[in-house]
């Protein structure tokens, strides 16, 4: 079953055709990677999924419902969470609060007026948040203010914020960029573990081929706004189109 289907998506910025008739389908439970050289349109595509950008034409359907025209929080509420490339965390709040916010949003919906409920009554959400933070290795920094964390930790926190919502579809934008090799491997393990144990469908944008080939069930290669190949990892490496796309930009 295909959980996310993208058909004929076009997006222009002035004279630049950022996305050109993009088609993509992601099957449920899979880890689907999107790779491609710089400027290929990967982030633009992701932004079209979460309501940040509206494509000029085409359709994006999630579980049979169109995501286009929905507000960001509505898209999240139907089960699509996103992990940002540059950490967009709540820098003034603690690590635990950063994770509890998406957890509460997942449980309570887009708005709940509960001004007199005590935070410490939210033990379920707290436990859930701590679980995720343990998975991701931040359990000893619960009360740290997010702004004082290292960059790597911020990225992991970003990931925890996505994971805690038990999304049906998790969009990850270069989850390991800027991480050390050890951290990268650790992240790969976490994602693999979560993908297997919770059955979360993931779409990953990534530069690091090591990450892509260790994780992905399927890979789409994007170049100059178009999907040039979509295949299982084993078939991607030797594909001449892919090589050309990368070498072409290298020149």
């Amino acid at each position, binding site marked *: 079953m295909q959980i996310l289907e993208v058909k004929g998506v076009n997006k222009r910025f002035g004279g630049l055709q950022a996305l050109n008739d993009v088609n993509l389908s992601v099957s449920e439970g899979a880890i689907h990677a999107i790779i491609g050289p710089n400027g290929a349109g990967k982030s633009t595509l992701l932004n079209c999924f979460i309501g940040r950008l509206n494509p000029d034409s085409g359709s994006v359907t999630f579980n049979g419902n169109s995501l286009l025209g929905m507000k960001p929080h509505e898209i999240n509420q139907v089960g699509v969470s996103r992990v940002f490339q540059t950490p967009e965390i709540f820098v003034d709040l603690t690590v635990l609060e950063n994770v509890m916010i998406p957890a509460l949003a997942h449980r309570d919906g887009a*708005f709940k007026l509960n*001004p007199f409920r005590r935070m410490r009554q939210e033990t379920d959400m707290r436990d859930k948040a701590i679980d995720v933070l343990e998975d991701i290795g931040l359990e000893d920094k619960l009360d740290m203010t997010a702004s004082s964390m290292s960059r790597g930790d911020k990225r992991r926190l970003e990931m925890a914020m996505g994971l805690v919502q038990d999304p049906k579809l998790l969009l990850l934008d270069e989850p390991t960029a800027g991480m050390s090799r050890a951290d990268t491997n650790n992240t790969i393990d976490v994602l693999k573990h979560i993908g297997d144990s919770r059955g979360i469908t993931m779409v990953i944008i990534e530069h690091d081929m090591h990450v892509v080939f260790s994780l992905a069930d399927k890979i789409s290669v994007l170049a100059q706004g178009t999907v040039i190949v979509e295949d299982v990892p084993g078939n991607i490496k030797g594909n001449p189109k892919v090589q050309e796309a990368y070498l072409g930009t290298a020149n």
Partner: protein
Amino acid sequence: MNNSKYSDAALLLFFIIMVVAGPFILAPFGGSYPDLLQKFAIFGIFAIGFNILFGLTGYLSFGHAVFLGVGSYGAVWMFKLLSYNVLPALVMAVVVAGFFSVVIGYISLRRSGIYFSILTLAFAQMMFNVAYSVATPITNGETGLQIYNDDPQWLQGADSPLTTNLFGLKMNEVFWRPEFFGFEAQFNVGYYFCAFFLVIAFYLALRITRSPFGMMLRAIKTNQNRLSFTGVSTRPYMLAAFVISGMYAGLAGGLWACMDPLAGAERMQWTASGEVVLMTILGGAGTMLGPVLGAGFIKYFEAIFSKINDQVLHSWFAFMPDGMENFMVAIVHPFVGKGWHLTLGLLFMMIVIFLPGGLIGGLTSLGRVLTGRGRKSKG
């Protein structure tokens, strides 16, 4: 998080003690008389409410005095129509302010940042201009809405007091005037009535800050965009915060009318809205005690510094030799009496330059320095 339960209880207890002992605490500073004490409580409530909006969400409203003003008008109308009992007046004040904050909030919150500030400012100026002139039949314009002998007062009992009261308990009654180290302290019914609401307001604000709702508001301040990508619809949260703080302002306005049954249009002017912004920042935006402290600070200045004249100055420096006395009076003279605005302006600048977190921020860092030293000497 666990010990916040105890520290919050301690904070609340501390707050209650300070409020109840207010007349004693202020006696040595010449501030222990009903009007000023009442103003402390009223503007404390106003600032606490404003802080729920500004301190938590970071949205800077420049029109909050409108809700205070309409609250006062609502309350005085209740006095005019029903009776001098304060309860219907307070209910009306909060309801009217709530209504106006829903309307103004709904429109203004379509924008954020400085655009939001200017929208609220624009509404406030429109409301003030209208209240001062065109709406005179409702607001009594320049003079302010007051109670006349020929007002209907349908529920006014034959022998109930002809002043604002709570079932006969007169708001302007001073029930105890002890001498306190040579200073007179005045214990007044109206002050304790306001203080009761101040404590409630403080407690509710504490609960709101510590609630999931409050956490969402703080998240809005930090990164509103991210919050919507997290599945939260931020606008209803903002509107709720706006209306809650508007109702706080309405309560403050209602209490003001209960203490002094006249509602002047000036309390809706943009300068009045600016004043609550200054109170909050001065005390420490986002802190629990800061806004109350800031409110007290500004009201104290307004009440005490503006009343110091040369006669008072001469009595201060009377112990000095004549030439010295005149010299000192000449030096202090520009900063008091008609110059009290100058002192206020200088203090604004000094506090924001040297105490970035406001008065509370300053006290906290002072406390840190002191305890830090304490530890060193121990170690």
